[in-house]
């Protein structure tokens, strides 16, 4: 920690031009993030031509602000239209959209903003103070631990969609199954491609997500009641007072830690971070049954985590030259285009960079917070449009967004197919959310399971002899049986109570 550099970093970042870049990056990030199918990585690629002429520090300031902004942007469409703009905001739809349906869109959005800002600020502080030791620890996370982490993530499936756990679990497993289509990760043979080259790379997650959530919801709306199909007409623009957030201090803190830690791990990212912290929020909540019905903690937890993951992902990127997420990989590539070589020497070659990144992400998070609170009303007001316009726009966005993912019509067909499947899943109480969780976590689960066995020559015990992996698996088991145990304890208490009252 070098105070001179800290000060220099601050002065560099708040110089007028750079400050403008922070704001611009943040706004562009929010915009890209909110469009389904347009990821923050794509946003950064689009910005590349401009960065050629900017020099290293201004470019990185712009790009990290964009990154910070995009993880918030995704939540806007997730909450308002059930259309997650980015995979990271899938978990936000679980409770965010029900809140919108109850007419509490304004509240949901401002919760998301406040949570995002907290997650963002928390993780950059961690980045500034603890980057080197944390990245050393991150290297201890290997295949066995990744596998354990996916198991922990999948446990969430059993707890969401509580109406029928049997169907929720089936949906999740079907999600994993769909993710297995394509080239096998360990030996490279085709699986379930039915002879199609398009399927070799597997199905893209985003079109499936858009279909199963956005299109399915539109189908649901048009069949529900013709013409008067809008969500609750009285859209409340009421927002959250800052002081209200204190109620969620533990959820905020836990999710921020989970987000940062998962963000650090290469090959994971905001989507897994938000799912795991959503699961943790359910586990520790007293009102489990309210999740999925518009529970506020269900918005706070994933939003905190996915923004924290953005800061977390910067840590190994800077310290080890190993990008913590696909987006940071592209930020590194952008630096490479300017002749800067990513790698462990980055911090010593460019001492000021860490501090500029810190301030840029910090300022971006704070402005998202301030600007977002004003913007909430504008965003929520979109809901006042008649459904004939709103529905049309959602369908169009879904289609263009799916197309933009791989620039191919094939993805639009996939979106279409999963729109129909998603509609029926919801009607018959299967869980599209669990399907997506399976889709996100499934491939990681299989790959790391098999890789660990490959590395250890088939030693199944290695999952529990490695300490970190063992601890995570223990957590998973506790999370799985917690509801049962809690129920048993409760029943016992109740019966005791009955007995005593009878006496």
């Amino acid at each position, binding site marked *: 920690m070098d105070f001179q550099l800290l000060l220099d970093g601050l002065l560099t970042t708040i110089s007028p031009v750079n400050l403008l870049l922070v704001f611009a990056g943040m706004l562009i990030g929010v915009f890209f993030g909110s469009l389904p199918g347009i990821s923050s*990585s*794509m946003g*950064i*690629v689009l910005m*590349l*031509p401009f960065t*050629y002429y900017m020099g290293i520090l201004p470019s990185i300031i712009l790009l990290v602000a964009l990154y910070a902004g995009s993880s918030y942007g995704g939540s806007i469409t997730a909450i308002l239209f059930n259309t997650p703009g980015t995979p990271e905001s899938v978990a936000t739809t679980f409770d965010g959209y029900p809140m919108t349906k109850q007419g509490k869109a304004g509240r949901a959005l401002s919760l998301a903003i406040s949570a995002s800002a907290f997650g963002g600020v928390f993780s950059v502080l961690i980045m500034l103070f603890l980057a080197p030791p944390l990245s050393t620890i*991150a*290297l*201890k*996370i*290997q*295949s066995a631990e990744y596998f354990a982490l996916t198991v922990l993530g999948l446990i969430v499936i059993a707890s969401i969609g509580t109406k029928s756990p049997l169907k929720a679990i089936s949906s999740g497993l079907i999600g994993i199954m769909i993710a297995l289509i*394509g*080239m*096998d*990760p*360990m*030996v*490279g043979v085709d699986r379930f491609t039915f*002879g199609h*080259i*398009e399927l*070799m*790379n597997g199905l893209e997650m985003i079109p499936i997500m858009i279909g199963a959530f956005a299109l399915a919801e539109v189908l649901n709306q048009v069949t529900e009641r013709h013409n008067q199909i809008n969500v609750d007409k009285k859209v409340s623009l009421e927002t959250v007072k800052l002081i209200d957030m204190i109620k969620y201090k533990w959820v905020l803190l836990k999710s921020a830690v989970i987000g940062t830690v998962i963000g650090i791990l*290469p*090959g994971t990212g905001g989507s897994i971070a938000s799912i795991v912290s959503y699961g943790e929020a359910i586990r520790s909540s007293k009102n489990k049954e309210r999740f999925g019905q518009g529970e506020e903690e269900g918005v706070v937890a994933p939003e905190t985590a996915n923004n924290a993951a953005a800061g977390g992902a910067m840590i*190994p990127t800077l310290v*080890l*030259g*190993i*990008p*913590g997420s*696909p987006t940071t*990989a*592209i930020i*590194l*590539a952008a630096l*490479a*285009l300017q*002749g800067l*070589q*990513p*790698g*462990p*020497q980055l911090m010593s070659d460019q001492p000021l960079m860490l501090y500029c990144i810190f301030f840029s992400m910090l300022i971006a998070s704070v402005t998202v917070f301030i600007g977002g609170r004003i913007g909430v009303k504008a965003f929520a007001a979109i809901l006042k449009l008649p459904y004939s316009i709103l529905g049309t726009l959602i369908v169009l966005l879904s289609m263009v967004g799916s197309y933009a993912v*791989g*620039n*191919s019509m094939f993805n639009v067909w996939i979106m279409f197919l999963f729109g129909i499947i998603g509609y029926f899943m919801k009607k018959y109480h299967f869980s599209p959310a669990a399907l997506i969780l399976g889709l996100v976590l499934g491939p990681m689960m299989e*790959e790391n399971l098999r*890789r660990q066995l*490959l*590395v250890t020559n088939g030693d199944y015990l290695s999952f529990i002899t490695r300490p970190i992996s063992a601890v995570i698996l223990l957590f998973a088991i506790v999370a799985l049986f917690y509801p049962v145990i809690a129920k048993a304890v409760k029943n016992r208490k109740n019966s005791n109570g009955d007995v005593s009252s009878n006496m």
Partner: protein
Amino acid sequence: MKKRFLLSVMIIGSLLLAACSSSQSSAGNKGNKDYPKRPIELVVPFGEGSASDTFARKYAEIMSKDMDQPLQPVNKDGSGGLVGMVYAHGQANDGYTVLEVTPSHVIADVLGTGKNMKFLEEFEPIARIQEDIYVLSVPANSKIKDFDNLVKMGKEKEISFAGVSPGGLDDLTLNALADATGMKVKFVPYGSGSEVKAAVLGGEVDVYLDKLINTVNYIKDGKVRPMVVLNDKRITQIDELKDTPTTVEKGYDVTIGSWRGFVVKKGTPQEVKDYLLEQVKKAYETEEYKKFNEDSLTNIRDSFLEPEEFKKAMQEDYKVFDKVAKQTGLKK
């Protein structure tokens, strides 16, 4: 009221249209050749941010500076470069679609992953532009002392190494080396380059095979130690690798590296190919590209190849990969 609304919309619409069309036409005022009349699509068959993508974007940017119409990179990621290839094959052979290619495409031919589409038959080369060199290294705290030691150990027990895509270039390259030296190796695939690096630094695998540029940074930082460079000549340009032997020095003729070049679909008019080759050459000579090439440490081998030589080189590669694939059981 309604009319005014209508009118204003039309005005805005036409303004927007005018703005766009003028920005398009202002670019193309030099000369009146038939080609190119509109932007040329450069299909990048890999994801945004990958090494091939970075290269393609930089090169397209440099080339576009001297062309009437820009070369626009378009990412069509998937299946180890196949999705992009299939897409490019589906476009007309009028020269408005150029495909970036790497050894992955030759490997697809070898393994038959492209089903009925044979890359070497369906496309015609423009030029090979860039070439990477592979370096084999071990984590700093590894017990393996040097290359001879590694080979000796590898004969006794399986050496594990990390790489991306099973049956891909990393896999085949190390297997080729293993085959030449008699080592036993185990390929452990990871999802991305960053996971490979994390696995190496975290000690999950024994050896690390990566491109020069990636490895050199870790050598500088003392995270890994170089064992051998897959090249014929010693790399004297980089201090860290001066004392590292090469495979050819050690008596193994394995110098597989990654390369990047441009091709067009079969049947593209000769004038078009000539024009593209000329522009590619011009860009190759610019200071900007030289600087970029130097920064990415791809300037060690003389990599530029004209169409005929490029074709020959790819056919050579095919034979090498074919041999390795058969030996490892990837191809029957």
